[in-house]
């Protein structure tokens, strides 16, 4: 069972408030090692220099969107097995199927709270301690 404080999470969202909300919720779940990326391109840069155990990414972003980011990550040997959770709006449920085809591990629908986030993360990396 992974210890939340030992898991490194990369949050990818182009909206500062959404990154703040996500970080706040992760902190509540005990996560300490949180890296923020403000775009898909920024995420790829951050992945080069950091060991990341879990990615939580928004779908809609200006430069490289969440789906494209997922596809790029799944192509590279070093990152292809990296757990990836997509955050999406309620009306984007259809897009979730596209993300599944691209290899997403799970998804979370906005608005989300602490318990939903915990459930989704545990479904991907196992029960948190």
């Amino acid at each position: 069972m992974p210890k939340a404080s030992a898991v490194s999470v990369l949050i990818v969202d182009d909206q500062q408030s959404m990154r703040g909300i996500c970080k706040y919720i992760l902190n509540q779940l005990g996560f300490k090692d949180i890296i923020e990326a403000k775009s898909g391109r920024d995420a790829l840069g951050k992945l080069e220099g950091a060991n990341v155990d879990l990615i939580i990414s928004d779908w809609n972003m200006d430069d490289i969107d969440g789906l494209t980011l997922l596809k790029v990550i799944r192509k590279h040997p070093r990152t292809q097995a990296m757990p990836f959770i997509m955050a999406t709006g309620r009306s984007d449920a259809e897009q979730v199927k596209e993300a599944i085809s691209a290899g997403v591990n799970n998804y979370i629908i906005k608005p989300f709270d602490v318990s939903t986030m915990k459930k989704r993360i545990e479904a991907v990396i196992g029960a948190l301690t």
Partner: protein
Amino acid sequence: MDSTGIRRQMGQNSSLPPEFDRGIVTTVHQGDCHVSSAQDVTFSTVLGSCISACVRDRVANVGGMNHFLLAEQSGSAKDRYGASARYGAFAMEQLINKVLSQGSGKKSNLEIKVFGGGKINSALDDVGAKNIEFVRQFLADEGYMASSEDLGGMFARRVLFKPHSGRAFVKRLDSDVGANVAKEELALAKRRVVVPAPVDDIELF
């Protein structure tokens, strides 16, 4: 029209400018988020303490309106990422993303107008101010500047917004109308239905 580009009128009996008085009028209720590019569409809402943001892609002529109320009591509302503020942030993100996806996709093309946050009932005093504080903080955090706004005051307002042209019309409502709006908002706040439970009804994994 004043210097901020918003038409304002006082009282209930004033007639609407012609452009707002024809075509299809869609009412935007609390919790709604509507987006359109149609020239003949007008979005309409009545605000007491609530906030409506009108977001428009000025290149694609696509616009939308939301309507939300952060009703959390003081204390937790001070928490920047508390449930109430999260609800507001999601409401704003939903509107912005909808406009972007139907428009040019570029945030730099967006113009934002914000309305509401009135002080129309002593029991809701704090709520209007907190709603204003929230929306201003959100815009600052995300690097947006409201192109115009009509916030605060001791009255309710009707806001009309043309999503295609981006023109907005605000009518400040008389106190009896404001009292009814306050009553409805207070009932909503007490029932706490304004912060919906997170959606978790799709199980694909």
